[in-house]
């Protein structure tokens, strides 16, 4: 592999097996410095394992990776000095207070005792945790935990930050706060690699996205390119009454030039659209026919729809892989 100074991450052919399961199976990745890069995929796709390899926590079975120019196997120590990891699980000590956690990390990173204390307070205040300084982390709310997790990764501002599903399980308000933090981080020059199960999140934050499935990258590009390859999204229509749904289906199919599905709700229909501008035309057609519409929505394609377009099957097909992910944890434990 040639060394490319512009790349924060350069991985080729990464493989990691846990028993029979090939959690990562020939994964290639290249992430430019200064970018926010999204790794999108369902549970069990190999996202966490990839992050663990790139942060030197796991040794790959095959392939190689350079992070900030250093080989993750040969120069692990140099890599650890430049990156920080916010794992999926709470990555601070829940028995300690927020302040104690940050002092602990600051001391481990070489801050003097007094500077460690002041750095801890600075970070807690900046992350809106100023009132929870002396409270044990186990008594924090979900959003506060996530913020202390991220704050813990910034005791020394890293050159590359790994965030493993930073917003999974958060309420929308906390999610927005985390997004804001990630944008600030990127704004001051840190490269960010985040994994997510939500296309919406990757779209909001990332300049480029890799879609991962079964331990491989199956699509890569800007959010725009990715969405173009998938179709812009789906139109969801709910009628005032169910009687005229068949008629509506026919009208919509013609107006959208796309197949229209009948939903389980007897008054609802949906269709994938490649040309969003046709939707207003479709709306007008329904109006002209006198079919009353209760709801008309043009949504972004979901992860399922991305998967359907890329692999011909929905992401839910991988539920058996959730079991594998548990096995992976088991194998790890």
């Amino acid at each position: 592999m040639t060394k490319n100074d512009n790349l924060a991450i350069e991985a080729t052919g990464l493989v990691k097996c846990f028993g029979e399961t090939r959690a990562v199976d020939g994964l290639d990745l290249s992430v430019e410095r200064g970018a926010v890069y999204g790794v999108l995929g369902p549970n069990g796709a190999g996202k966490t394992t990839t992050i663990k390899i790139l942060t030197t926590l796991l040794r790959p079975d095959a392939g190689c990776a350079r992070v900030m120019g250093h080989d993750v196997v040969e120069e692990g120590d140099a890599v650890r000095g430049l990156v920080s990891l916010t794992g999926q699980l709470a990555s601070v000590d829940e028995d300690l207070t927020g302040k104690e956690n940050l002092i602990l990390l600051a001391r481990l990173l070489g801050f003097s005792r007094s500077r460690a204390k002041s750095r801890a307070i600075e970070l807690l205040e900046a992350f809106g945790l100023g009132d929870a300084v002396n409270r044990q982390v186990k008594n924090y709310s979900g959003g506060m935990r996530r913020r202390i997790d991220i704050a813990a990764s910034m005791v020394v501002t890293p050159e590359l930050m790994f965030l493993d599903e930073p917003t999974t399980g958060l309420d929308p308000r906390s999610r927005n706060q985390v997004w804001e933090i990630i944008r600030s981080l990127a704004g001051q020059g840190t490269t960010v690699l985040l994994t997510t199960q939500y296309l919406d999140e990757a779209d909001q934050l990332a300049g480029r996205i890799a879609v991962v499935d079964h331990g491989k990258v199956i699509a890569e590009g800007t959010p725009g390119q990715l969405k173009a390859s998938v179709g812009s999204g789906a139109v969801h229509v709910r009628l005032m009454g169910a009687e005229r749904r068949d008629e509506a289906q026919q009208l919509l199919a013609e107006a959208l030039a796309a197949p229209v599905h009948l939903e389980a709700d007897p008054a609802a229909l949906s269709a994938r659209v490649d040309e969003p501008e046709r939707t207003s035309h479709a709306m007008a057609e329904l109006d002209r026919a006198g079919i009353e519409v209760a709801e008309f929505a043009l949504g972004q394609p979901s992860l399922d729809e991305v998967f359907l377009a890329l692999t011909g099957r929905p992401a839910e097909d991988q539920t058996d892989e959730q079991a594998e992910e548990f096995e992976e944890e088991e194998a790890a434990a």
Partner: protein
Amino acid sequence: MTTQAQQQAGSTPDLDASLLAVLAQGERPSRPSAVSAALTFGWRGLLKIKHVPEQLFDVTLTPILFTLMFTFIWGGAIEGSTGEYLQYILPGILVVTVTFTTVYSGVTMNTDLTKGVVDRFRSLPISRSAPLAGPLLADSCRYVLAALVGLAVGLVLGYDVDGGVLGVIGALAVLVVFALGLAWAFTALGLVMKTPQGVMNFGFTLIFPLTFMSSAFVDPETMPDGLQAIVEQNPFTRVVTATRGLLEGNASWDDIGIVLAFAALLTAIFAPLTIRLYRTKA
């Protein structure tokens, strides 16, 4: 607590401006030494005792219960009087209770592993041995506490320390050094087992026969020949002999030396293994 937490989350912080300020500092202190990092992990262990004082329950209760139970329940039957039996078993009880405490090093490590915090430590640019050696500092405090509690109960019941203050200090030192060697072994176990309960069960299944098949509670002379041979070879018998000798003021350097050598052997085997297991843990 929940409502308080929600209020916290509710007060939207002005993240942007202050956040940029803390991020922009770019302060990169130089790496701490392995010793300094280990001390920091030791500090964490002490903080955990402060926040979860329940973990000292066993440490204080076991020596009290053991001393009382063995003295008064078995004393009359075994030695003919509780006073004489106390004089015989107290050093043994100290060895057993301190040994029990070492199992918790493994339990603590295993509990850490089930949380994400170990991944955080492993992704830091720090010495590889510090996260493992550090907690042993806090553990040492537990060993000393367990031994002192047992000794205090013994003194109240009339145990004579013929070895004096120096004997007590010597006995504590030998116990702590031996326990630290053993703690490496249990930390390794903590890294291999799946659950904290598993570590606990396996650890005590191992510790029970080893400590009881020693000279801790009963004079080996009274045992059947075959068992007697085993008991005499049991390292725990050596630890009991050294502790007893120090407390009674008649320890030989051989008795002490062999315990220190045994502790060194345990450390030489299990410290590198533990550090390796911690590093390669998925």
